[in-house]
Every structure is written in structure tokens, then in C-alpha cells.
């Protein structure tokens, strides 16, 4: 059977990590390629890069990062942020990424999902969703709404319906980020994850809220997530990926223990 995947997420701006990551000897690492190498060696099953570079002139810097990562680690990785066309996707895939993820871009141009799936295969297209809990109303029957621009703009789209629409448009995977839980380190939004995961046939990566190993266990069992995205919990060296996997393995969650 498939193992549950543990996926560190790295935010990149102008080719550097947005926040320095503490590594061995408390050395701050700003180079995303070195951070990727560290997590690869710790047993990451996949790595997600999120490019928050504002200027489109700087996109070549990210492509250079992608090429260097592809020469350094031999596990799958995805790149998201600022991907607005099939040509943007092609550039990232040719530079060596397995998958591209589209977030607000997909909300603005849903046909981008089909176009990417047709050009590169469904498995290459990850639909990233930022979600906030809201009051249930006719257009938001699940009580979870899709937001964009870091949660500043409510789109009027229901999260569950958007996940199902994304699947039918050809997304191969969903990365489900709870804006409410993100950054709190208080645990994943289990209810949301379970709701979406039980209603789509494609894998769901839970994101937002990981602060303890138990949080990963809960979202991968009760939450029915196929994978767990992690950030601060490993960036600040509270845990290594190996620690987290050892805990999960000891608690009956199937994870990859040899790398």
C-alpha cells in the first residue's frame, strides 16, 4: 500500500528563502537548494516550493533554482506561485519539477487546470486551495470558502465544490490549505480535510497548522489526508522529518522509513 507522504514547503522570493531556516549548529540557510538537500537527506517524500516573487522579470531566477534543485535531490518536487499559462508550466517542468501547483491563478482562469492536464498529464497539475471557515449560506453550503491573496479576498466559491470542479477539470492532486490554521501550529483543520478527502478521488495534501507530530498523525488518519505539508515545525528545528516519521511509524501510520 502507498505510504503517507511528508512534504516540507519552502517559500522563495527572488531566489532566496523568505525566512532563513535553522540547520545543524543553528546556521541560518537562505539558499533553497541547500534547504532542499537537507530535507531530502532527512527523508522528505516530496518538496513543495512556493515562489512569492512579485516581479515577473525575476521568474528566471526561480527557474535557475528549479534546475539546481533537480540536480541535487532525487525525489519529486513541485513549484507553485505566479504560474499563469501553459508556457509558465512548461518552463518549470522542463527545468526539472515533476508538478506545478496553481492557486489563485486557477480561481481566476479555471481553464488553466484543463490546459495543464492536457499538456503534461493530470499527475503534473496540483490545485492549491486556500480555505477559510465561514457561515453556511446558499452559495457556500459546506461552510468553507475559497480565498485568494493570502486570505484577503473572498471569492464566493465553496471549497468542496471547487475541489470537485478542480478534479473534473483534470487536477491530479489537491493541496488544501486552511488559512485559519496556517501559522498557528495548533493542528490541521481535520474536519475540512476529511470533508474534501472523502468527496474527491484524487489525493489530498493537508496544509496549515502542523506544530506537533500528533497533528500529522491526526490529519493522516482521522483527516484521511494522503500527505501532510509541513513548514515551521521543521524549519525551526523543533523536529526533523526523521523524528516525525519515526513517531508516525510507531503510531501505525505507514510512512517511508528507508531513503
Amino acid at each position, binding site marked *: *500500500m*502507498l*505510504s503517507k*507522504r511528508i512534504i516540507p514547503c519552502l517559500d522563495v522570493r527572488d531566489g532566496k528563502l523568505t525566512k532563513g531556516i535553522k540547520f545543524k549548529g543553528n546556521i541560518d540557510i537562505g539558499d533553497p537548494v541547500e534547504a532542499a538537500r537537507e530535507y*531530502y537527506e532527512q527523508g522528505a*517524500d516530496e518538496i513543495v516550493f512556493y515562489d512569492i516573487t512579485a516581479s515577473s522579470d525575476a521568474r528566471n531566477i526561480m527557474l535557475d533554482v528549479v534546475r539546481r534543485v*533537480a*540536480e541535487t535531490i*532525487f*525525489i*519529486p518536487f513541485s513549484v507553485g506561485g505566479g504560474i499563469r499559462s501553459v508556457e509558465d508550466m512548461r518552463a518549470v*517542468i*522542463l527545468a*526539472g519539477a*515533476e508538478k506545478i501547483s496553481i492557486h489563485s491563478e486557477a480561481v481566476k482562469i479555471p481553464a488553466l487546470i484543463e490546459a495543464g492536464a492536457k499538456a503534461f*498529464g*493530470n*499527475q503534473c497539475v496540483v490545485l492549491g486551495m486556500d480555505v477559510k471557515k465561514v457561515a453556511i449560506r446558499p452559495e457556500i453550503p459546506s461552510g468553507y470558502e475559497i480565498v485568494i491573496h493570502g486570505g484577503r479576498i473572498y471569492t464566493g466559491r465553496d471549497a468542496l465544490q471547487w475541489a470537485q470542479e478542480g478534479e473534473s477539470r483534470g487536477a*491530479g*492532486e489537491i493541496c488544501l490549505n486552511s488559512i485559519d490554521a496556517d501559522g498557528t501550529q495548533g493542528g490541521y483543520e481535520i474536519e475540512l480535510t476529511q470533508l474534501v478527502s472523502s468527496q474527491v*478521488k*484524487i*489525493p489530498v495534501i493537508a496544509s496549515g497548522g502542523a506544530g506537533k507530530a500528533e497533528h500529522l498523525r491526526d490529519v493522516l488518519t482521522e483527516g*484521511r489526508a*494522503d*500527505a501532510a505539508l509541513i513548514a515551521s515545525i521543521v524549519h525551526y528545528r523543533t523536529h526533523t522529518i526523521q523524528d516525525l516519521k519515526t513517531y508516525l511509524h510507531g503510531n501505525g501510520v505507514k510512512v*517511508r*522509513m*528507508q*531513503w
Partner: protein
Amino acid sequence: MIGIIDYKAGNLTSVARALHYLGEPCEVTDDPELLDSFDRIIFPGVGAAGEAMINLRSRELDRRLRKWVAVGKPTLGICLGTQVIFERSEENDTTCLGIVPGSVQRFPGNLKDRDGRFLKIPHMGWNRVDFPRVHPVFAGLPTDAEFYFVHSYYPAPADERWVIGWSDYGLRFCAAIAHENLVAVQFHPEKSGGPGLQILANFCRWEGNDAQ
């Protein structure tokens, strides 16, 4: 020199990058005339079987590949490259290369896990592979090694003695085959961390011959 066969089936540079990392010289080519200049070849690919066969035929790579394997030079198939080695694929009901007797079948849509939940297709992610017999290309792997898969179809060789690696996804399926100087894997060794690199490094040193 190792030849990586390019037949416009996905991005093949990841295999080349893994070989560079291992210090193994290689060349990606779609030129059938170059095949004879290589010591061994890797036949990778992602995508659909139907289109792959059209591309192979249009470059006359189908005929050259059959000849290459018949001569007995070491060959490694990966993912779609492994599937088109068989006689037929259920994907677009495609006639394939016919190098290995057997067919390629789609995972049934009703497979369930132990908790009774439907399994998602494609089979995507890390899964264990058991290697019941010894073979030089699959030597030195940790017992619980897992490999990265992305596929909806799996190979079913006519003779199970050709299967050298079994995996499980609601049903037991063939994840690796070995016969004479041909080895082929359904997973992606170039994306499977240390154990995957080990397989590639073993293949680069393998002079052929099955270790039966």
C-alpha cells in the same frame, strides 16, 4: 556510454540528471542510427501508450529497439518504457513492441484498502517492492525500500518467472521484470531517493546476464 532513448514521451532529463550525479556519462537521443554506439540503453518515458508507439514507429525506433534487445545488450525500461515493451496495452488498446510476452492492464476502479475505502487511481506515491530473488541490478537495497510510482496501468507478463519485483495496491502487481539482458521497472528509480539511485548505479555496472 549509456544511451537514453527519447521518443517524445515526457521530460527525460531527470534520468540524465540522476546519471550525471552518479558520474555516469550518458546521451539523450532520438536517432536510431546512434543506438549501436552505446554499451547499454535506458528506455524511459511518461504519457500514453498509443502516442508513444506512434512516435517510436515514426522514428523507426521500434524496429531498432527489438534488434537491440535481441542482440543482448543491457537494457533498462522505466515506467511507460516498461509498458510498451509488452505485446499489448489496454491503454487506447495499443499494439506495443512485443519484446516481452504479456499485456499491460488498467487498475480496476473498485480496488479497496483494508478499511474498505476505494483506492485512488493513478497509483501515485511511494510503495514497497519485494524482490523475491537475487539479481545484480537489484542488489544492495534495504529490505523495506520504497519506490516512487505514478501510473494507472501495470504490466502483466505472460510468464510470472519474469517478475523480479512485486508491489501491492489493492492487488499484487508486477513492479519489475528481469529476463536475460533486459530489466524493466514500473516505478521511477530517478525519483526514488537512495534506493532508486542504487538501482541506476547497479545497472551502469551490469554486464548483462540474469543471476538465476
